[in-house]
């Protein structure tokens, strides 16, 4: 019984991994990675998007529009609110209990990239 259960889980695991890989290989590229083509955004423009309903952040020289992501973020929106409309690298590097976000979290940001930051 245990042998069957573990074997089924083992097969299901690799099937899931293979599915994600296949989807990723077959799906068209969703994000343009060429940052040169992105508009430059300065601090003043950034500051104009400082609410949870319209939340932009500058992180390591790039600007992200996180408005749609805020409801999906694991912490309450109030944690992210103070970082809207400003340079937020510190928030990204020292999230909950003083530690960096995971590499996966960093990778997720590409989907919200809207410009490069000019100080």
């Amino acid at each position, binding site marked *: 019984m245990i042998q069957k259960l573990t074997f089924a889980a083992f097969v299901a695991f690799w099937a899931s991994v293979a599915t994600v890989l296949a989807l990723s290989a077959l799906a068209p590229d969703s994000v343009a990675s060429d940052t040169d083509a992105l508009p430059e955004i300065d601090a003043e423009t950034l500051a104009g998007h400082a609410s949870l309903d319209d939340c932009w952040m500058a992180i390591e020289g790039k600007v992200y529009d996180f408005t749609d992501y805020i*409801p999906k973020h694991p912490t309450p929106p109030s944690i992210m609110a103070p970082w809207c409309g400003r340079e937020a690298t510190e928030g990204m590097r020292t*999230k909950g209990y003083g530690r960096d976000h995971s590499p996966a979290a960093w990778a997720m940001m590409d989907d919200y990239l809207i410009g490069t930051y000019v100080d």
Partner: protein
Amino acid sequence: MTPLQARSLIWVLALLPAIVAVVMLRESDLASPEAVLNYLGRLTGIAGLALMLAAAILSCRVPGFDRPFGGLTKLWWTHHQLATAAFLLLLAHPILLTLAAASVSLDAAVATLLPSGLDWALWTGWGALLLLMLFLGPGYRFFGEPDYQRWKRLHRLAAPAVVLALIHTLYLARTLPWLWEAVLWLGLAALAVVSILYRFSWSRRFGRRPYRVARVVRPANNVVELELEAEGPALTYEAGQFVYLTPRDPSLVAGRGEEHPYTLSSAPGETGLRIAIKALGDASRAIQDIAEGSRVQVEGPYGGFFPQRSSPDAPELWIAGGIGITPFLARARHLAEVGEPVDIVLIFCVQDEARALWLDEFRELATTLPGFSLHMHYFYENGPLDSTFVGERCPNVETRTAYICGPGPLLGLAQKVAHELNIPRSRIVTEEFDLL
């Protein structure tokens, strides 16, 4: 402590980090389907690692530590259950986190599942998971029946797997406050390290006692009983316990320097040790030809088949099959030494009389030990063991404690018979060697 309490204690310890994570659940963890998936992903990771560490803690094999669990075989069973739960949870862990990230984008899901470049946090997680599959797979017969020694060597990969999983967790953990993370993980990891150091370093140097093979007796053509003399401090043990024996005889064709579990057939009052070994595998077949005078090492004792009292104060029913007679032989020899009256019925199951080991000695005991009776069950003559056979030969059967030892099929059958004869489950004690 009862076996149930001992098992419960270990499970609570193993689930402690997950319990803390559930207590500290935040509203945002349940805010959306992807938040729930993300939370479950983290929770399965936390629970999986903690269960893995608890399984490592149980692998220490300190003599006597297995007693509250009802013996080492029962302790191993708990170890096996912990590891299985850990394995299932850790397989679900990355998949749940990947599904949660898929709500952002497919790229985010892939980045969550697969490491890129020097992404040590994910590489260590994958390393731990792949090692886990490699050393647990044979235990679940993923790739057929495993070779015992190869399986034992492969199982050592558990140590690097745990280390990688800890690095992965300390890198990515964010569910619990930092202090909780540090205390829980370092506490469990420290216990696991102490266990593993004991097992692979301390016990090998100081736990193995030197003995010499004084005589080799052959009760049958595929069974030997080794008589051992201590070359240092002698082992203290109870009747029915077993030891890990490491033969050092250079002339052995297999199993030299390998440890294997064997039951002691001697009574605790004897000066030396006696160990009964049936040829069942390469090492036990080779040991049939072990040289008298050669050296062996003995580690133990383990097991808790019989209660710790020297003589029974309640009536007993013993059901033995084949080489499973060994712990009963030790107990009967011990009771003969003590000399007090007993109330014991032994049902000895074998194919035919030619395969009944130590039959003359048991017949002798049946005449000299007051209250001890022997009934032979020959499979070729009587068919499978049933409740009629046992009930007719065993008076007041429902008042007895049943002790059953033998090969797997007999164990199941005898338990069924004991159950049919109204012996409550709490008074049915079984012993089986499986993947020790």
